[in-house]
């Protein structure tokens, strides 16, 4: 059954690809919310325009997606967060950026807007100033409780954000995050941008997922224009995506162990990470592989010595990594810190549609590469590891297994790739058209929705990082743990700040 069969809608939008989009009225909007709260659908995205809001809905079992649109005639829409909590931060953001009001909402505090932009509702068409009020953290009261405020500038080399811990002795009873510090206005910069500039912006949404974002952006444009990149370009994209996944997993596995005071692992995985970046540099001319993937294909083929560099990398990983796994598995002092620490309940992972290793370590069997089977993953053999424990240890193990899968995937791609074109021409003058794409970044699914005009300029582009639905789960994961375990929990999530602040 199509998702839209169960949602009364006014009309479908013909120019939206590859999944359907339909405009709904109150009844349809409410029906969609009910499907979300009942757990039949997962909230995949929720974003605004000056006078409309859109929700992307996922039916994981049927591998289907649909977008529903509510037109906000009076600048209002019925609050989704009131009934379905995973929508909350996105809903607050829609209000911050567009000034659209969620009716019936319980929490209207700003999220990205820290009252220093010099304007209210920067992407909307409401010309009303917004009163500045001091940000109110949620109360946690009790005689023995005290608060610890951390950030936005942290002690390490990491992105800025604010964490407010309420603790009873050493035990955390509540963590509340306040983010938005790296808000750069990416979606506003996208408006009116040429495809070249927009692709560069997408690349820089979250530096650690540069490839995944460029991949998703290119696929969204290609969906909108109903074109395909050449087969070789599609393989090259996946090659870069897996290389990016490897580099990040190595970095994070080491960083998690380092936070458990096991520096040897950090040193060893740091070497593997650097080797990945160097191989990427040899093969694609940039260590983070920025600006290689563009709508229509890729701008450059793999360098002549790239194939050899990558095969050497795979051999090195196969030689060294099993020993590191053994080391992780046999070090009691490490296990002591990671097992049963920072548990994400399977129920929460499902409700929030948590992507990546956060979801898969808590029983959520979703990986866009397999569930949505986009090219070239529909032609590649790989497994998606899933565990139930939901603790730091499970998130480490998911990453370990994913490293093994990525190594196998890169080897397959190198063997399967045949010579050919790497870029298709992008046709102009197709008229307004809309595209949606979801790709699997190392930390989870990236969703990009966009609308292009006649001149191939971006009218509106929304980029949704997996972190939106992972950050709130970090708040739940730390409860009952001690403050000293926060870095460990945090690192095992490694949520993006820039990707969620935009």
């Amino acid at each position, binding site marked *: 059954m199509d998702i839209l069969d169960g949602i009364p809608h006014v009309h479908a939008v013909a120019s939206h690809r590859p999944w359907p989009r339909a405009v709904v009225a109150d009844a349809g909007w409410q029906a969609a919310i009910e499907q979300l709260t009942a757990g039949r659908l997962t909230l995949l995205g929720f974003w605004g325009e000056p006078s409309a809001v859109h929700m992307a809905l996922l039916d994981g079992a049927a591998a289907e997606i649909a977008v529903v649109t509510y037109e906000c005639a009076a600048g209002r829409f019925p609050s989704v967060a009131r009934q379905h909590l995973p929508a909350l931060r996105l809903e607050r953001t829609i209000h911050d950026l567009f000034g659209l009001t969620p009716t019936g909402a319980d929490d209207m505090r700003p999220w990205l807007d820290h009252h*220093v932009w010099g304007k209210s509702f920067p992407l909307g068409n409401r010309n009303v100033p917004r009163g500045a009020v001091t940000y109110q953290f949620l109360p946690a009261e009790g005689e023995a409780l005290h608060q610890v405020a951390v950030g936005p500038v942290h002690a390490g080399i990491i992105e800025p954000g604010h964490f407010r811990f309420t603790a009873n002795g050493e035990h955390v009873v509540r963590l509340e995050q306040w983010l938005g510090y790296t808000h*750069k206005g990416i979606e506003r910069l996208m408006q009116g941008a040429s495809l070249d500039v927009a692709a*560069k912006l997408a690349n820089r949404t979250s*530096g650690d997922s540069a490839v995944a974002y460029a991949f998703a952006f290119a696929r969204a444009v290609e969906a909108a224009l109903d074109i395909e990149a050449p087969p070789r370009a599609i393989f090259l994209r996946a090659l870069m995506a897996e290389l990016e996944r490897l580099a990040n997993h190595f970095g994070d596995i080491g960083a998690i162990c380092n936070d458990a005071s096991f520096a*040897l692992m950090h040193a060893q995985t740091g070497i593997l*990470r650097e080797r990945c970046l160097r191989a990427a540099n040899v093969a694609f001319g940039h260590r*983070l592989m920025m600006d290689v993937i563009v709508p229509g294909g890729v701008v450059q083929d793999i360098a002549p010595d790239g194939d050899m560099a990558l095969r050497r990398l795979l051999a090195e990983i196969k030689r060294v990594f099993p020993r590191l796994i053994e080391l992780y598995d*046999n*070090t009691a002092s490490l296990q002591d810190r990671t097992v049963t620490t920072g548990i994400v309940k399977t129920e929460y992972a499902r409700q929030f549609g948590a992507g990546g290793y956060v979801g898969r370590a808590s029983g959520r069997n979703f990986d866009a590469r397999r569930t949505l089977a986009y090219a070239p993953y529909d032609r590649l053999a790989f497994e998606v590891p899933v565990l139930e424990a939901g603790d730091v240890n499970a998130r480490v193990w998911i990453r370990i297994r994913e490293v093994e899968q990525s190594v196998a995937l890169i080897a397959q791609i190198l063997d399967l790739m045949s010579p050919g074109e790497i870029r298709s021409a992008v046709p102009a003058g197709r008229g307004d058209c809309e595209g949606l794409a979801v790709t699997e970044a190392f930390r989870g699914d990236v969703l990009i929705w966009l609308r292009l005009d006649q001149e191939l300029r971006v009218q509106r582009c929304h980029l949704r990082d997996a972190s939106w639905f992972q950050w709130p789960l970090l708040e739940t994961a730390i409860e009952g743990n001690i403050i000293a375990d926060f870095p460990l929990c945090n690192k095992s999530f490694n949520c993006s700040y820039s990707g969620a602040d935009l």
Partner: protein
Amino acid sequence: MRKTLLESLTHGSLTEPAPAPDEAALAELASKVDRAAQARLGRSLAIRQVDAGSCNGCELEIHALSNAFYDIERFGLRFVASPRHADVLLVTGPVTHNMRQALERTYNATPDPKWVVAVGGCALDGGIFGGSYACVGGVSEVVPVDLQIKGCPPTPTDLLKGLLALLEHVGGKG
């Protein structure tokens, strides 16, 4: 575990000898480091990194400076947790409006003498994010900048060269 430990003891250093001309430059700078840094600051410079709104690409490469290949500490350069312990602020990003105050406060919390290094195209002038309602622009719009390290992101080698040049500059100032 023993095997891994033993192997790391026996398997020689990975620390990067940069390609020939660079190696000479690094070695030359490294020897100057000792004299310059000793004169002013003893044997080391303490660096506090501040992300003022970057995409995180620059941070990834700054991290790489501590891996076995670049091993930044061999030059007497080390990252510290607090601006109060720092001689150098290494700032990235197009300085978002939301981070402006935090950057100013971090700068004010850093004792004199101090140096600010702006890292990456964004930190120079806002880069691709320049002109946004949410961004101030380059780091120098908010705090005085002593050195620019360009790139998007700069490679670890670029970063290392820049920081070593700073050590020279620091000596010059003294």
